[in-house]
């Protein structure tokens, strides 16, 4: 997807625009957030397509399971949170519910706020221990 947001937009600013563009192109998108939709900007997609978005609360592991369920019905499921929580809090659910079913489930994980630190959000949101190598080792791309 080439996001139609401003060329210099931050990744999270482009995210809801990219989702909207996918829907307009005919992709059956469902997007979920876990109480950080103002930070991931996922709520902007929800304002445009309320029937295709919801927040599941502070429950990242359940969000992965719900997304896998949507994917099982043929939808393209996007889930978004801070990298420290997705995959940080729900690595097992990603492995067993998304990566391991035959062929893999069509779930797109959008991990925002990666890097060294996230400033005032504090240590629990700091992603420095969330290594992409953890994902590659479990059939996740």
């Amino acid at each position: 997807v080439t996001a139609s947001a401003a060329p210099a937009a931050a990744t999270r600013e482009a995210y809801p625009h990219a989702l909207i563009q996918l829907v307009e192109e005919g992709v059956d998108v469902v997007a979920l957030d876990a109480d950080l939709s103002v930070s991931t900007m996922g709520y902007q997609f929800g304002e445009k397509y309320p029937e295709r978005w919801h927040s599941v609360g502070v429950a990242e592991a359940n969000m992965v399971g719900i997304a896998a369920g949507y994917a099982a019905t043929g939808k393209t499921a996007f889930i978004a949170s801070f990298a420290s929580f997705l995959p940080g809090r729900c690595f097992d659910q990603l492995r067993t519910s998304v990566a391991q079913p035959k062929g893999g489930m069509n779930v797109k994980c959008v991990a925002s706020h990666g890097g060294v630190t996230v400033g005032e959000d504090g240590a629990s949101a700091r992603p420095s221990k969330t290594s992409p190598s953890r994902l590659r080792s479990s059939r996740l791309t």
Partner: protein
Amino acid sequence: MMGDGELNEGQVWEAAMAVPHFGLGDRIIAIIDRNGIQNDGFADDIMKTNPVEMWRGFGWHVIECDGHDMAAVDQALAEAERHTTSPAAWWATPQRVKASASWRTTWIPREGATEQQIAQALDEIGGGLK
């Protein structure tokens, strides 16, 4: 100490069932600040539950009190300390929700309230912090 939005997380309930099971009621007090709101909106809109009954169901002695009334807070904590046979969950009543009628129906996003929303809320609680 936990917020009510935080009670969405499954790990909380794994701990809630383990504490009574392992007989730790004489050394753990859970304090829950029930302000009725979380990052993505109002707690009841995001995940409506009956958390008081849920804590009771897990075997906790739940004390509800008005978080604005410091005498009641003292009393609740003292009662919680006395309750050594089952864990005590000390439950503060809504703070922001109680403070202002307009904030009860307006989601203040993570970036914070607008100046107009702050002024309206201060008016509603009787001049507030002027």
